[in-house]
């Protein structure tokens, strides 16, 4: 295959370029509205593609996908209202940086990292599609179980200021994720007869309740506070020095995102969290994270856009959608009369290469359009708290309602918000709860499927070659966490002896 032999004139048609630009603007807008993410955005724009040629049709959807993943972080950073699990990872450092008076910088870090993440994801898509898909498809349930466990240990080990509390937080997140119909047996768990709980607690209600509503409760303490007073701080940009400072985190995030994105069923949410925890783990000053550390914005943002390219890998090579968003794109291919599958690289070479290149152009368009539009959102932070709080609450409630059109979820969000406020006051770890909530279903179902398939034999987790690699990584991580703990301890002891 030769990606460079592609005839670029197919890409530079009016229809294709218009599709990319329109998709970019629409994606940014939909992504910035919490509750409506990439999947809803793609589904909403799908009817438009019916009248387009295949290449512009798919590029329109891919542009929406890419930009909605980025746009999700805007409301996270500016309002503290996360619309997706991925954007929640950005919130942890993005919101404090914006509230310290630099929303433009926070948005700048996010945009730059997203763009680079998108490009890295695109390049991986172009060069490694077939080998990567072949590896990803071999991942079975034992591997997914182990990856989930790695994620839990990472986050548990990280927020270990108080180990028992972080352990309890993980357990609480797992418990939340168990509510609803058990996918293996079909029986209802912890639903208390409520129809609305049959599908589990809504992810968006949990995210928004836990971060946005609890934050609003904290803001009530200071109604006259104004976060941004200088206008030049609204501009979406970062300096070259600042960029160099986060470059390593961007690259880490991009690669983690691209590779985790390839695995069906994981996608952008876990990818961002893995990237965040890894960058925090390897940082020289992990205590700065959560207070507006730029590296804490760069890594998850690069990861969630890297995951977009990754998620297209199994879709384009095998016709397997690994996420709800790619499932809708698969539908669009069908409507265009193109059957995605192992043969598509041979039968539709030009279309596939067109998508690859168009994907990169869409990412660049995202940077340009994002740079000039996102600062508008930052303006919200020039308001005083007594105006800002009602705006946030309104956005929150509309967001939760729009995601499911079920008023029950709004109540869930409010209840979780109040609970999260108390937990935060008591110093429990909200990220641990969220990550456990996201990974819980993956860990549980993959564990039970593994056991079901192996006929109850637990060695299935140790005997497969991919499992062994993951266990190897797991052991290395545990050692790394242990060593850094020892270092911190001895450092503390040294400082204390010096001080005395």
């Amino acid at each position, binding site marked *: 295959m030769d990606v460079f032999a592609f005839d670029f004139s197919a890409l530079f048609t009016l229809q294709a370029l218009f599709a990319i630009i329109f998709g970019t603007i629409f994606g940014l807008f939909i992504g910035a509205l919490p509750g409506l993410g990439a999947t809803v955005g793609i589904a909403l724009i799908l009817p438009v593609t019916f009248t387009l040629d295949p290449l512009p049709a798919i590029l329109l959807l891919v542009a929406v996908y890419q930009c909605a993943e980025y746009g999700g972080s805007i409301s996270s950073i500016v309002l503290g209202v996360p619309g997706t699990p991925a954007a929640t990872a950005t919130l942890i450092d993005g919101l404090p940086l914006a509230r310290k008076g630099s929303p433009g910088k926070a948005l700048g870090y996010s945009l730059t990292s997203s763009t680079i993440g998108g490009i890295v994801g695109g390049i991986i898509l172009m060069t490694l599609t077939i080998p990567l898909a072949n590896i990803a498809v071999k991942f079975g349930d034992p591997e997914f179980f182990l990856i989930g466990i790695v994620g839990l240990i990472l986050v548990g080990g990280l927020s270990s200021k108080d180990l028992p509390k972080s352990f309890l937080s993980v357990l609480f997140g797992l418990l939340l994720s168990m509510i609803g119909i058990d996918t293996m047996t079909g029986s209802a768990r912890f639903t208390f007869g409520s129809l609305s709980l049959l*599908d589990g607690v809504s992810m968006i209600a949990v995210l928004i309740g836990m971060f946005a509503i609890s934050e609003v409760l904290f803001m009530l303490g200071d109604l006259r506070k104004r976060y941004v007073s200088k206008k030049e701080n609204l501009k979406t940009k970062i300096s070259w020095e600042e960029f160099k400072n986060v470059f390593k985190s961007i690259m880490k995030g991009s690669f983690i995102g691209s590779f985790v994105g390839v695995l069906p069923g994981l996608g952008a949410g876990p990818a961002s969290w893995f990237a965040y925890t890894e960058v925090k783990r390897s940082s020289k000053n992990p205590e700065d994270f959560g207070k507006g550390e730029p590296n804490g914005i760069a890594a998850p943002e690069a990861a969630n856009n890297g995951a977009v390219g990754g998620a297209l890998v199994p879709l384009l090579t095998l016709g397997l959608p690994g996420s709800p968003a790619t499932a809708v794109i698969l539908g669009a291919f069908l409507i265009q009369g193109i059957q995605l*599958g192992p043969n598509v690289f041979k039968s539709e070479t030009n279309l596939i290469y067109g998508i690859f290149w168009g994907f990169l152009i869409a990412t660049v368009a995202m940077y340009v359009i994002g740079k000039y539009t996102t600062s508008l959102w930052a303006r919200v932070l020039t308001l005083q708290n007594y105006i800002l709080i009602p705006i946030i609450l309104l956005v929150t409630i509309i967001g939760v309602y729009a995601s499911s059109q079920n008023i029950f979820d709004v109540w869930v969000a409010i209840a979780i918000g109040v609970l999260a406020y108390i937990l935060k006051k008591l110093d429990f770890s909200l990220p641990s709860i969220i990550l456990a909530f996201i990974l819980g279903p993956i860990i549980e179902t993959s564990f039970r499927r593994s056991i079901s398939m192996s006929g109850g034999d637990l060695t299935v987790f140790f005997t497969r070659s991919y499992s062994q690699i993951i266990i190897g990584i797991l052991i290395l991580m545990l050692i790394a966490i242990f060593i850094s703990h020892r270092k911190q301890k001895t450092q503390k002891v040294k400082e204390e002896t010096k001080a005395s």
Partner: protein
Amino acid sequence: MKRKKLFYFTILLLLITSLLAACGDNANSEDATYPDKSISMIVPFSAGGPGDVMTREVASIAEEFFGQTVVVENKPGGSGSVALNHTINQEADGYTIMNHSSTLPQTMASGEIPFTPDDVIPVATMVSNYHVLAVMADSPFQTFEDFVEYAKENPGELNVVGSNTNGANHVFSLKVMDGAEIDFNYVAYDGGGEALTRLLGGNADAIGASGEVVQQQVEAGEVRILAVSSSERVPLHPDIPTFKELGLENVDDELIWRGFFVKPGTPEDVIEEIQDVLKSVTESEEFAEYAEKTNQDIYFVTGEELETILNDIYNESKDLFERYK
């Protein structure tokens, strides 16, 4: 400046009057003939899924025949019970039409949702797809007989993947077990694509899914179908036997279909009107094109015939779920 204000005021006034005019349209709908206002189609799944795509296709074609706008609303959640609950809480006037599939009576039978077939009236089915039992091309099972033979010698050892518990794939797998008197392990995934991934990765022995799920891999020569669940051989795979031919009398036209339902108590003439429109939709060129592109067959069944199908699925599934608990 004053002029500008006046201009805005006029526009505002115009907008308000037109809004009020729109309200007036609905006010005396009692004695008019159906339909004289917009119709909602409720989709119990999130946007973008196959049920949603079909309903949107139907809605856009049906608008012409109804002479009214058709609005599609997604009410996902609770294995369809959120949408069902919404539908039976509206007036029984035919303005709320719910989309669902043959999975509905199956989830009802499993006791997963607190409803029975008496809670809905099936209006019509639109499209269908047959089930297949398929293996990888390099699998030792060349025929369904090989599969049965191995399963008989090693009961419970073969892993067959499919989409969801208590759904169409699950019932299909149970029926194959029942008919062939074998025992294998059905492992449920969230959707046919995920199940197929496990088969392709060599993590499962076979897949029990709708034909469209494996079609591309079959064309590429990666996957081999052992048997199909329709009563006749399918034109796409003339060489592949049906389960009925292989002696599984109980797996006869075991189809997955998608259709529409209304609330019990809806007037007969309204139901007939909807049936007529849906029939015209299935006969339209656009719909034929949609069905072909999505690898589905047009399958239009209504009235008593459909009610019997619905009740049969319910009773049969209930029996299977109890026996294979």
